[in-house]
């Protein structure tokens, strides 16, 4: 939008295209376009705990999608733990049931604007 001379919100369009691509199944698991794997893993955690959880997110995503790359991430993960920058367990918000109810309803209402 900032650079577009026609004031088009380009990021919004990119998100819309991504949603449509995921919904229609236009992606390949084996390439960089496998972003839904990451997004979906992320969403799983948010749904379950209300907040994101880096350790779980990284390990689960990589185990599922790039098991061979795990070794590259390991040193950094250890560094994170050592620096106190990563938790071993996720935090769960108090109103997780409320949040789940809201998200379920949102999906039910659904639709694109």
């Amino acid at each position, binding site marked *: 939008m900032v650079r577009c001379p026609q*004031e088009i919100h380009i990021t919004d369009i990119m998100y819309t295209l991504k949603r449509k691509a995921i919904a229609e199944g236009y992606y390949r698991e084996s390439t960089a376009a496998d972003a839904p794997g990451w997004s979906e893993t992320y969403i799983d955690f948010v749904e379950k705990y209300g907040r994101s959880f880096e350790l779980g997110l990284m390990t689960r995503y990589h185990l599922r999608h790039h098991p061979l790359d795990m070794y590259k991430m390991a040193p950094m993960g250890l560094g994170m733990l050592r620096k106190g920058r990563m938790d071993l367990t996720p935090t769960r918000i108090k109103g997780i049931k409320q949040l789940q109810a809201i998200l379920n309803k949102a999906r039910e209402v659904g639709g694109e604007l």
Partner: protein
Amino acid sequence: MTEERIGVYVCHCGSNIAGVVDVEGVAEWAREALKDRGVVIARDNKFMCSTLGQELIENDIEKEGLTRVVVAACSPHLHEGTFRTACQRAGLNPYLCELVSIREHVSWVHKDKAVATQKAKAIISGGVERVALHEPLEPLHVPIHSSTLIVGGGIAGIQAALEIADSGYPVYLVEREPSIGGHMAQFDKTFPTLDCAACILTPKMATVGSHPNINLLTWSEVEQVDGYVGNFTVTIRKKARYVNTDLCTGCGICEEKCPKKVVDEVFEAGLGYRKAVYTPFPQAVPKYPVIDVDNCTYFEKGTCKACEKFCPTGAIDFEQEDEVIQVEVGNIILATGFDLFDARRISQYGYGRLANVFTSLEFERMCNAAGPTNGEIVLRDGVTKPESVAIIHCVGSRDKNYNNYCSVICCMASLKFAHLVEERTGAEVYNFYIDMRTAFKDYDEFYQRVLEEGAHFVRGRVAEVTDAARMPGEEGKLIVQAEDTLIGKQRRIPVDMVVLAAGLEPRHDSKEVAHKFGISCSANGWFIEKHPKLDPVATMTEGIFIAGVAQGPKDIPASVAQGAAASARVLGRIQQGEIALEPVRASVIEERCSGCRICNNLCPFNAISFDEEKKVSVINAALCQGCGTCVAACPSNAITGTQFSNEQVLAQLNGLLMLNVANGHGAVTEAERVPA
């Protein structure tokens, strides 16, 4: 029930109206349903504005004794005059003719035929009711003063001034800067012929400077405009030059001796320097310098006076003050030009931050043999010749974030730059464009020529200009990143120099100027002409004309043409000696006026005064502009307005509401409201 004999004429306008409105049906309906409202004839015609259509009305007036005419066609702003004149030819007072719009307000904005037809009927019904109450009016005749004020001494204003002055009439030419010449004086070559701007402009400037009929007021601004067409009184401030022009010979010694050097942001577009006492350029007209008080050491610190010491004629006068003068003129031409779009606003192009990014105006000065580099195309260091140059089109134009419109001249100016770079440096030139716009005589040929000279053209809007190198070969260069939309790829092109073809913008104070002269600006800030096609140099305000870029972006030939056109309009006026004004005026019915004076302060034209003897308010017909605010405000209904009396407006309202239609006396039936 009226005694009038009204004729109704419904225009097909080819298929413009007839394609949506059942014009025959409407005419038939008017004949029947409006019979007891005085309609004796109702006809439809392919083109009412054609000679045949007009003759139809004239014949009916003469043979059928029509006393009122309603034409249902296009907007009154287009053809009101046409039909009024037709009536007049047939001996009917022109103000007894009413044009109602069923094209702009019906057939062009609605698609449903039944609904549009019904709305057309209502509009005609309103016109019939209103015209029945019209009165014959005579236009007001006012004399035209033979002097003309021209504001702006660029090429459009110069052209207009010379046309009028050469015809033998006096002109006051007011220019804000110390010299006339405008933007054209800054240019080097002019497209597409590449003749030198100064060679064709400066002779005209000199003629203006010495013309016996031109009173040249440079370094001056219009402060106030009073009066009306034919009789304007204009207050002009002549800013102090601190140079006595009676004594000054224009020798230039003061400028030479002045110790204070400042960047010249105006004439040199920031690319060169001038002194604190200066004439903007050698061929300036008039030749007299001005002292820039913001930068003059004497005005800052109280000492120096080098200019005074060295002036051989004692012309420097630090005590000089602004002078305010008043002139009487009959017509005014505004040719106030443009400001260049400020390229700093698009920060991703790096202007002001990256040294070797230049604006088009800077580049014009650079190419100019009399400019800061004597015409050498060099980088900001003043020495290095570029080996590659990128020219970015549409900077600040065709962009909703800045200006939505096309600035018209930049494509051709960019092609000219490309040619000059090739010719003078042999550098590779890259043009980044959205669309190439090379309309008009010999322009596209010039494009072909530049293509053949080997300039590169990349179709794509530039994303950014950066000095952050990413790939080998980019170090120390400016990298221009753009999507080449013809090959569908991102490109990064490293160059030495970038020229931004900045767009044209209305003068920063165009809105204030418009207000001062009582004309309108478009949302963008350009002055609005009376009609975009048929009356491009007149404005809605009688006696005020516009010319050049102030009306909208255009090139030199078009500016010159408008300057000449505006002067032709003015000359026509002057030669008539007087002008007929629309007799739409308010007047006080003395018997009803209670003398409360509520209206006295309402009039912005000071047309209402109070007669102390009779204890009633009085309206000066020549000053009254006919807005009608006083009519609406009078608590005693003692003010009435010709063409817009309460009775006339309410009659039209009743007509529009179809309250008086034969088949629905009094009440509006559901079917007549707005058919679904």
